[in-house]
């Protein structure tokens, strides 16, 4: 009886443990290896990875094999007597030369792959990727198209400390964005990476590489995606608080679908520009409404929903800037504060800058009462 109860407890414990291990649902997996990816580069890198891996495995088996053989047989408890040799020039030269030749054998495919990866010429289109704390901006230089890409809303809600949301219920948790970067299949795409504030790194494993996005530098890389699909990645260089929350989503579409997407985006952008017209007079209600959405998209990560800021980030609520001279307020937003996390936001449209400033001056208990017209930004700050 006692034994049976113990047994039952044991089984219960075991099932709980396995249950716990598997509790993260269908998308959880025990992936072991690098993926092959969907570009010629990623496949080349994958096979290079497998070659070195196998070379290491074989060397490992040989060296550890000898070592464990010796450990098993040359032990005192087995009556082994110690020999006295302590050098052998021939052996030592041989085991210097063997690794050397293995390295040369590895260097050949590695050099070839590297030359291929660095051949960025003859591209069909160019996408400029700019890292911001903590989002990406994509500019299609040939199409005059540009947009920001940030963590998708559901993930963004679930990711907070004690958010109360079970992250297993969020599709593609932390790997989804609002605006993915769309590319045509089969075309050589040149990526230009740079950053606006600190260093980031743009990485989509299925493309086979990552490249740092560095303020003041423009790095070149390329990819030709061979299969339509959705490919996900993340920022790979520590870039501050929300480094783990600026994913990348590449959607590869067939040429026709891609063209259609471009036209749609262009139309949407034109419409937005129309709505954002800086030359007309805006009402306070319009500015406040737009300001709130700009604030929630661009400022909330640091200044927080209550405007109280956080460690190292000055509050907007009661801020001498947000309640004082409006010119100072515009300066901070347009030019940033050197040496702090407060970056320049001049990339926002005139209307967005005017709106977010108006919003900050009249929310969180601030009652500056004044408002900034988009035309002011356009005429005095551009």
């Amino acid at each position, binding site marked *: 009886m006692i034994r049976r109860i113990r047994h039952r407890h044991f089984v219960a414990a075991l099932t709980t443990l396995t249950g716990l291990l598997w509790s993260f649902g269908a998308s959880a997996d025990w992936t072991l290896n690098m993926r092959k990816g969907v570009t010629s580069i990623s496949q080349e890198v994958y096979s290079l990875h497998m070659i070195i891996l196998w070379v*290491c495995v074989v060397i490992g088996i040989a060296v550890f094999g000898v070592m464990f053989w010796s450990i098993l047989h040359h032990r005192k408890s087995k009556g082994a007597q110690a020999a006295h040799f302590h050098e052998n020039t021939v052996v030592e030269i041989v*085991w210097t030369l063997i690794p*050397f030749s293995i390295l040369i054998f590895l260097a050949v495919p590695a050099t070839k792959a590297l030359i291929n990866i660095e051949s960025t010429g003859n591209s069909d289109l160019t996408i400029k990727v700019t890292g911001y704390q903590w989002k990406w901006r994509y500019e299609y230089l040939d199409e005059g198209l540009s947009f920001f890409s940030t963590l998708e809303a559901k993930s963004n809600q679930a990711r907070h400390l*004690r958010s109360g949301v079970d992250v297993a219920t969020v599709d593609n948790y932390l790997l989804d964005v609002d605006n993915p970067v769309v590319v045509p299949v089969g075309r050589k795409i040149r990526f230009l990476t740079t950053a606006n504030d600190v260093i980031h790194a743009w990485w989509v494993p299925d493309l086979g590489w990552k490249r740092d996005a560095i*303020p*003041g530098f423009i790095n070149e890389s390329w990819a030709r995606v061979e299969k339509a699909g959705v490919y996900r*990645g993340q920022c790979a260089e*520590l870039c501050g608080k929300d*480094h783990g929350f600026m994913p990348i989503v590449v959607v590869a579409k067939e040429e026709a679908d891609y063209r259609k997407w471009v036209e749609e985006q262009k139309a949407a952008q034109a419409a937005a520009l129309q709505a954002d017209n800086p030359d007309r007079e805006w009402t306070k209600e319009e500015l406040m409404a737009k300001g709130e959405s700009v604030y929630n998209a661009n400022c909330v990560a640091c200044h927080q929903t209550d405007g109280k800021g956080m460690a190292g980030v000055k509050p907007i609520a009661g801020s001498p800037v947000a309640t004082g001279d409006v010119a100072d307020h515009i300066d901070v937003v347009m030019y940033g504060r050197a040496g*702090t996390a407060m970056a320049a936001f001049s990339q926002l449209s005139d209307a967005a800058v005017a709106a977010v400033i108006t919003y900050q001056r009249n929310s969180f208990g601030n009652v500056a009462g004044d408002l900034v017209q988009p035309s002011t930004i356009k005429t005095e700050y551009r």
Partner: protein
Amino acid sequence: MSHSHAAHDEHHDRAPSGLMRWVTTTNHKDIGTLYLSFSLLMFFVGGTMAMVIRAELFQPGLQFVDPQFFNSMTTIHALVMIFGAVMPGFVGLANWMVPMMIGAPDMALPRMNNWSFWLLPFAFILLLSTFFMPGGAPAGGWTMYAPLVMQTGDAFPFLIFAVHILGISSIMGAINIIATVFNMRAPGMTFMKLPLFVWTWIITAFLLIASMPVLAGAVTMLLTDRFFGTSFFSAAGGGDPVMYQHIFWFFGHPEVYIMILPAFGVVSAIVPTFARKPLFGYSSMVYATASIAFLSFIVWAHHMFTVGMPLAGELFFMYTTVLIAVPTGVKIFNWVATMWKGSMTFETPMLFALGFIVMFTIGGFSGLMLGVTPADFQYHDTYFVVAHFHYVLVTGAVYSIMAAVYFWLPKWTGHMYDEKLGKLHFWLSTIFVNVLFFPQHFLGLAGMPRRIPDYNVQFADWNMVSSIGGFMFGLSQLLFVYIVIRCVRGGQKATAQVWEGAHGLEWTLPSPPPYHSFTTPPVVK
């Protein structure tokens, strides 16, 4: 050395006792003990932060800390482990062993020795106090990359000054070791007769002197960028953020060898002892160490393959990096050849040394893989790198320090430690350290970046396994503290030679050795 022994003892009667003895001591053994105790303390401070990291990563979603604090944890964990645990651990071993191994009474510069130790607690008080400052502790990574590090709050100057002080301490320690070995060897102790531990430490000391000032320079430039209007690393001011990385890694790569060369020395002392057979290829070991040290200055940019170097630069750094595999391989082969046809026994120090050889080699393999530039474009800044450097630093450097402590503890204290518990400590550590770090290779290959507090559910399984390994590995280390304390307190008396196969001057002294190791120099034939 002419005054009599009696006068000597009287002199010690007047030496302060209690706490002041430790504050004012100039004795190499006391200072060695201070360094080692400090190292152990920091191992647990840094280890606690590692536990916080593994707890947060146990499951997807944020459970315990916010992302900024998480970044502080990874940053300070690294700084504490590197500068607080591993480096002082090796300096402690050098302090204890170098004079005894070369037949000297003490270190050449005993007062400087005292100062180089006592700077350490102050540096770490500065560093750890930043947790209580507005803006929190530094969170830009231990590499302190500009421009991110500029966003550090009030902690910034404290971080910089802590690094300065640590650098000064290391340089003084290095000068002391060089001065000691060059001037205080016993008659007949020629350079090519020095134990390998001494050799690896001299070479390490030169690496320290050459690289620490570079780090000091880099962080000073950060300081002036922040407070004095320069823009060395600010693109907006005409500076170059990538230059910071070049300067940092010109220090940083030699630094990794600073943390591993003395480990090679320790293993080269232990393996022959327990194989009861002389070290195979002594002179090739010396030359291999020297070549590794030389190469370590021309490989730095392998940490920066993704910054966008010209093709020629990438090729150069790839070739030099993989070349290091050759002298490193020579060392591994020599250790295996030392065991070959030996008469081996497997006391705890030998177990840790064997664990070192196997697992350091695994870290070496992943290092080779990382050195291949195109593959690094995938591996870089992922958990694959985290797995790599923890294999070389934990199962490499830390294992060698533990091996050394078990090896020399009977000599230091005059008591044998509890062999059964020592072996238990080894097996627990070895099982769980692999549960902890091996799955991180898989995570990195599957695409998990490093330094993130939260992740997609696809990474959940291996992270949970890794965390369980981490907690158990952490717990196992309490056993180590217990074993060491018990051994210091008492135990079976140790003989002078301690280990049947031990050779060398340190084993000719009684256990524990006299306060001044060799008052009359021994003659080495």
